[in-house]
């Protein structure tokens, strides 16, 4: 498989990583395109036979960090398009997904990215460490803390003045009141 074939093959995974980092589809598409431009420009620095996946995921991550330093604006969950959620989901499923999506936005970026790359891509801790430029123990710790934090949030284990819980509560109430709209798309 040539270098360019590998780039094309890995685009879906880059897109997921980009969305995990940016939380915004349009920004994720831009980030993937920019990262691929960087990878093409730096292709001669890639050593064939080494870990291509970790190499290009690292390029995307570095690009994200670089962009973040330039402009520190992130998008809140309300800007996530409705198509992010499975249209066939039931009302309760959609509520739970919305809660999960909202909770994800409150995780530290490195934890969210680590969790997504392990759960969605099935990436090993070793590959995750290489892709995110950290020790294997750090990679493992990020995934572990992300899971435990989400579990705490999703089970309602939050301080009473927590903004996330208040937002979730407000969202749930507005969903309950809007009986004529059975799915999440009515909120966008």
């Amino acid at each position, binding site marked *: 498989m040539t270098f360019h074939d590998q*780039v094309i093959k890995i685009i879906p995974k880059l*897109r997921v990583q980009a969305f995990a980092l940016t939380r915004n589809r349009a920004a994720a598409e831009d980030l993937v395109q920019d990262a691929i431009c960087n990878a093409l420009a730096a292709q001669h620095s890639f050593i064939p036979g080494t870990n291509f996946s970790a190499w290009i995921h690292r390029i995307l991550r570095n690009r994200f960090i670089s962009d973040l330093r330039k402009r520190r604006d992130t998008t809140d969950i309300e800007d996530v398009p409705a198509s992010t*959620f499975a249209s066939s989901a039931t009302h309760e499923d959609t509520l739970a997904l919305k809660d*999960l999506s909202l909770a994800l936005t409150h995780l530290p970026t490195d934890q969210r990215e680590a969790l997504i790359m392990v*759960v969605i891509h099935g990436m090993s801790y070793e590959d995750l460490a290489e892709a995110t430029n950290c020790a294997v123990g750090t990679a493992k710790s990020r995934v572990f803390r992300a*899971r435990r934090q989400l579990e705490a949030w999703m089970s309602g284990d939050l301080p009473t003045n927590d903004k996330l819980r208040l937002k979730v509560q407000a969202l749930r109430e507005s969903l309950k009141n809007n009986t004529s709209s059975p799915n999440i798309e009515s909120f966008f």
Partner: protein
Amino acid sequence: MNGSKKHTQEAKTPTLENATMRDETPFGIWLSRGLHKLFDDIAHEPIPEDLLKLIEDDRTR
């Protein structure tokens, strides 16, 4: 008997030391399904033509 009970308890409350890539606790399974619902659509979207063209142009350069 006691060994299997202890094993079950450990599986329910993973620690950093015994955490595995696949979290088989009920919450871990639910979380995995939820994340797939949120992210699989993104992964399966068609690749934009202009991005493919960018790569193919570089290939033939």
